[in-house]
């Protein structure tokens, strides 16, 4: 009886706190039915925002995946002075406010920044332009791949890599044939987290973007403009689209575990 009560309480909490917001997104988007909701997606600024988000996310994910693999390799396969500091440094963006993460790029490349004016003169626009958005997104999503890879690769040790090296494999061969296949579930998980975070980033991007509709507005920024402009249906339709993309990405993390579970029985 007690147990049943706890179950009900747990599910009530989950529904109230976690599911209700999702339901609100859909309800608000479909307030006037499917047609008007779909109609709002045809707005050229919205489409531009969607493509910009895809573009920025792709670049940030590729960049941080390459970095994440190199950093995880360095941090787990070697012991060298300064290793711990590097670990702390890599995780730092997680405890920095998104607004500050955007601000720092303005300090470097903004109109009042260190190098902004010089670059501006040379015709290179970073702040209030797409490169700035990319820099801010890379900064915010930098730790995710490293964070998921490091504990797993640390636990795997370096024996298999050493065995491969003794058998004659070079750096790329070891990485490609031994390390990454062994850590693929963590790697995929890290990439998906990076993706979800990159497409949803709001605070950092909002500071560096300049909010130019159709040019420097990503989906989250466009949602804000629409919401503040009282275009509720349009705002929530775009929000629903973005939420679906992000949730699907995060849920995909559970897929590889199902696909590969049969083979990799832990020792």
């Amino acid at each position, binding site marked *: 009886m007690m147990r049943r009560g706890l179950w009900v309480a747990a599910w009530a909490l989950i529904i109230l706190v976690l599911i209700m917001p999702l339901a609100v997104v859909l309800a608000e988007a479909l307030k006037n039915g499917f047609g008007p909701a779909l109609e709002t997606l045809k707005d050229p600024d919205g489409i531009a925002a969607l493509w910009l988000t895809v573009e920025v996310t792709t670049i940030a994910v590729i960049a941080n995946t390459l970095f994440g693999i190199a*950093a995880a390799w360095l941090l787990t396969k070697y012991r060298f002075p300064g290793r711990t500091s590097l670990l702390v440094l890599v995780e730092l963006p997680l405890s920095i*406010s998104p*607004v500050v993460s955007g601000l720092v790029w303005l300090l470097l490349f903004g109109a009042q920044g260190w190098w902004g004016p010089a670059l501006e003169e040379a015709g290179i626009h970073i702040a209030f332009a797409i490169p700035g958005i990319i820099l801010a997104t890379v900064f915010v999503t930098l730790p995710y791949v490293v964070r998921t890879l490091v504990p797993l690769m640390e636990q795997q040790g370096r024996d298999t890599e050493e065995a491969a090296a003794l058998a004659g494999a070079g750096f790329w061969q070891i990485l490609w044939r031994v390390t990454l296949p062994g850590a693929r579930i963590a790697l995929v998980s890290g990439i998906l987290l990076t993706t979800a975070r990159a497409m949803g980033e709001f605070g950092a991007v909002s500071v560096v973007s300049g909010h130019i509709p159709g040019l420097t507005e990503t989906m989250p920024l466009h949602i804000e403009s629409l919401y503040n402009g009282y275009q509720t249906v349009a705002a929530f339709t775009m929000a629903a689209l973005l939420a679906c993309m992000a949730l699907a990405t995060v849920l995909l993390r559970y897929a590889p575990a199902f696909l590969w579970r049969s083979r990799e029985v832990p020792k």
Partner: protein
Amino acid sequence: MRAFNGAAGQYHAFCILVVDGSMKRAFTQFWRGGYSALPGYRFSLLFTVFWTGFFIILPLCALIIRPWQDGVGPVVAELHDARMFAALWTSFSTAAVAAFLNIPLGLFLAWMLVRGDLPGRHIANALIDIPLALPTAVSGITLATLYSPQGWLGYPLSKLGISVAYTRSGIVLALMFVGLPFMVRTVEPVLKNLPQELEEAAKLLGARPRQIITRVIIAPLRPALLTGFGLAFARGVGEYGSVIFIAGNQPFKSEIAPLLIVVRLQEFDYPGATAIALILLLASLSVLVCLGVLRRRISAWSVGA
């Protein structure tokens, strides 16, 4: 006297030798990857150092140096700004309250997921990630709508005389939503690794159910709870997107520090914005360090954790 000098000189030379020898070795270890023969050390070292240098160290330097660049004036002016302190207080107090309220909720959900045989456990487990996955702007407009006086939850609450939207309680609610997964996800693995035998052993030793919960289950979880608190708190202090829509953003009342940074930037007051950012960063880092120290103290019994 002479002999004493000689001895001191020798000791000095010895010190230089030791320092020099170990420094040289430390440098060689750094350059050669602790003498590991695995290939790729220098490549990954250079790549990582370059990347963190550009993406983390350089921006941090800008953040630390920029406020002082126009002299001490702007920083001192900022330190006299009551609005900034009000904003910082709002951010820190709401983040702390939200993280604190999340402790029982997170513990309850984690326990139900791991030990409670909750029906639909796998679905519930995936649902826990929603606040993490949901883009903050989406959470922001959604929570603002949900708790607005006309909203699904705001309407019944306003009937009860509780107004949530556009007040500090709204901020706390938004931060609780955002921080809940951190709590559940830090407690969950520790709870999973806690042997079930502990509860059985306590039962055999005659502990009553409530004693089992407080002494055998919660006590070993305290470090994890503290970590979860720290993560949720750190996230809450800096949170922007999910808060600004529900907060109302009235200066001195419901204006959070990240928003004040944005306001200062819109006024083109870069030194002012940077000064707030620096204080925000230092304050949240020192809270995290304190929590880390506290955590180490209460988990002295566990070697690894």
